[in-house]
């Protein structure tokens, strides 16, 4: 066990955990930020996607000891009032069915759009291919990403 100072959603947090503990479980069990989801634990489904700095990463494969002073953003901190363009587009398109994978989809999509504000359909498919939606909302996810892109460019 060791103490780690983390910056999560702009707030300083301290946890006392095994250094190998993945950020997924630090967030969920220790910081009670349960918006980040467990799906597979081996970086195959994308449900646990968070931002490390500006990059989308799989929190199930990110040991707390590797974070250091990098900023962590989770779905709870993506925007102040749930009004990030991607969140708004998701609500507008009513993307979700069960909703479980969508935090990871949104975190991945928002990091992707930051790097590529005008993606083609093929680029969206490629960027989102690591995020599984078991309910099959892929066509709506693509539509929402395009809407978010056009609203940001408006």
């Amino acid at each position, binding site marked *: 066990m060791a103490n780690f100072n983390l910056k999560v959603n702009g707030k300083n947090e301290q946890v006392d955990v095994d250094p190998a503990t993945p950020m997924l479980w630090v967030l969920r069990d220790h910081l009670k930020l349960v918006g980040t989801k467990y799906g597979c634990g081996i970086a195959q489904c994308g449900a646990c996607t968070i931002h490390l700095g500006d990059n989308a990463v799989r929190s199930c494969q990110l040991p707390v000891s590797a974070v250091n002073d990098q900023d962590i953003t989770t779905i709870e901190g993506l925007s102040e009032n749930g009004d990030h363009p991607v969140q708004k587009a998701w609500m507008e398109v009513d993307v979700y069915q069960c909703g479980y994978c969508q935090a990871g989809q949104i975190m991945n999509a928002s990091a992707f759009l930051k790097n590529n504000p005008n993606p083609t359909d093929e680029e969206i498919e490629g960027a989102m291919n690591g995020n599984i939606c078991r309910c099959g909302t*892929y066509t709506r996810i693509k539509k929402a990403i395009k809407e978010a892109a056009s609203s940001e460019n408006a």
Partner: protein
Amino acid sequence: MASIKTKIGRRAFIKNTSLASGGLVLGFSFLNSCKPKQVAEMAVQEMPKEWFEINGYLKIGDNGLVTILSPNPEIGQNVRTSMPMIVADELEIDWKDVLVEQAPLNTDLYSWQVAGGSRSISSSWQSLRMAGATARQMLKEAAAKAWQVPVGEISAVAGKLTHEVSGNSAGYGDMASAASQIAVPEEVDLKERSEFSIIGTSRKNVDGRKIVTGQPLFGLDVQREGMLIATLAHPPAFGMQLKSFDADSAKQMPGIKDVFSLKIYDDDFKRSAFHHTAFNEVIVVLGESTWQVMQAKKALKVEWENAPEVSVGMSMFGNEMKVNFPAGLENSTNHRLKMEELNARKGKVVRKDGNPEAAFKNASKVIERSYSAPFLAHNTMEPMNFFANVTDDHAELLGPTQTPEWMEPAIAERLGLPIEKVDIMMTRQGGGFGRRLYGHFMVEVAAISQKVKAPVKLVYSREDDMSQGIYRPSYYATYRAALDADNNLTALHVKTGGIPESPLFANRFPAGALDNYLAEDWTIESNITTGAFRAPRSNFIAGAEQSFLDEVAEAAGKDPIELRLELLKRAQENPVGERNDYDAARYAGVLELVKEKSNWESGNQGMNRGVSAYFCHDSYVAQVLDIAMEKDKPVVQKVTTAIDCGIVINPDAATNLAEGGVVDGIGHAMYSAITFKDGAPEQKNFDKYRLIRHSEAPKSIETHFVQNDIDPTGLGEPPFPPIMGALANALYKATGQRHYHQPFITEKQVLG
């Protein structure tokens, strides 16, 4: 207006005393105390000072807000929005003034609190309408009393009561207190379809904001003071059991509270259908956090041994029966050989019309094709989990289940508590697909909590979830068709079976459309546990049958839609047999609609097109799937779906569900399988088990609903089975190769 008695489901109008406490009862407040500030503030701002309970489905606040309780489990089918919409429409309230809460399990108040059989809406359609309509009537009566005017002269529209003659008017909130004292009326007026103002209009998912902001909603999100986390180690293969284990090093690991073995049911325990287990003895690892218990589980030293044959006596809805689990470690290669062997023998004749033997003997052309499908894991994105807090005289359970109503007695019996001491609450659920119909995880966590006398959340890892069983069974089928010299279809023979169940629906189309018809089946016992998976049995047999009909049409030189319509015309005008359990006119209706909407008659439009249609869960679905070849790879460009499921409550949400069925069906037919080696599943996570991904989904999906006034029928399941046939038929057009054995990807590299 149609005046109907409230007798049906009358018990639903008993007042629910647990709701009468009023105040801030937020639907998700029990999950986590760490709600972001702004969400809590928004909710509080709108809250009335006092709630008045009108019946078990709704309460009205003094400011006119209405809280509607959604009785059924929410697994992604969106009943938490559509069920309250039905109540709100009959109540005559503006949808923006409605708050939705998840109702707890309460078998006195509600019926069929089950997410299964695509029956949530159809089974509660009348009671939800009456809940709204009786409340509206009680508000009117309260106003009539207050204003001393005849109740028949009062109108109730959009949350407002008006008596035009006297000029009196009041909001629902003003009359809520008085209305709550009025006796439940004997008769109420329900709206005509033309009067619906919410039903049939698209409304956004009531949990949308919570989903996109990461609020605690799901079972895995449950947090409680003093709660321990449990995980289970189960045998690595079916046909094995626990011999011994050494937990010394696991117990020394940080955060670990205890490690012990747990027998779910003693040998003499009287089981019902809901005392369901894959492995009856497991090792429990209990600790402070999820990561810690997952790590400690890896440190267990366990010896497993081969299990003997087990025969479990079970009471299935009152019928006593034995379920047999043979000994041995099974292999997929043997499964396939066994299925082929049984399918080569005579099966059990389930239906026979005319003289199929003679028709085949006299045929000028016989087509015979065989189809198969593997075991599948449901793989809900949220793995199995549940919370329990069991004390000496009470059990509280909270989490994702499709069958709270059926699990309550099962849990009470296992714990030795009276049923009224077991309370079950439902969270939103990260998928169901049939997996959470089998609540063994609820019994497991309750038994653990009872033993350790602490609140416990049981968490399955993905590997636990995928290797634990309750799979979609594996199936095999052979179809034969006889054609005469004029290419008329004169007989059809289906022989099918599976491990451990048969997928045959002997009385569905094309039975009834053919003079000569034979349906046979068989089953093979196995120790691999199986369960219902989205559209059970249909999810295989639809694709096989609809692929076969495509080959029959081709052999007969007919358009595949025309062949089906000809058969359906026969079934409608002059049906063979009396037990046909489909409506041929509605079946033909969806084919006609998909033909029109896909511009079927205007030619291929550069696409390779496949069609399919199927009936299940009282609904009819037809689909046209278009494939384009891109760099020698087939890519699904578009799917056009036509559905007849009666009245559609929430069209955009229904469309979403139908789109999901299409993607789900293409994915499972193409990519997914659980295979076995020496009893162990060879796929335990998403590195080996393939689910469809973004780039493999259709580029566009179009959904059309037949407009009629028929009471709602199923929707969650029906769009799923037929798409597998449409996919196989379009792939054939695109590549020249027919696909018979799922997952198609193993037959040959297809879809790019």
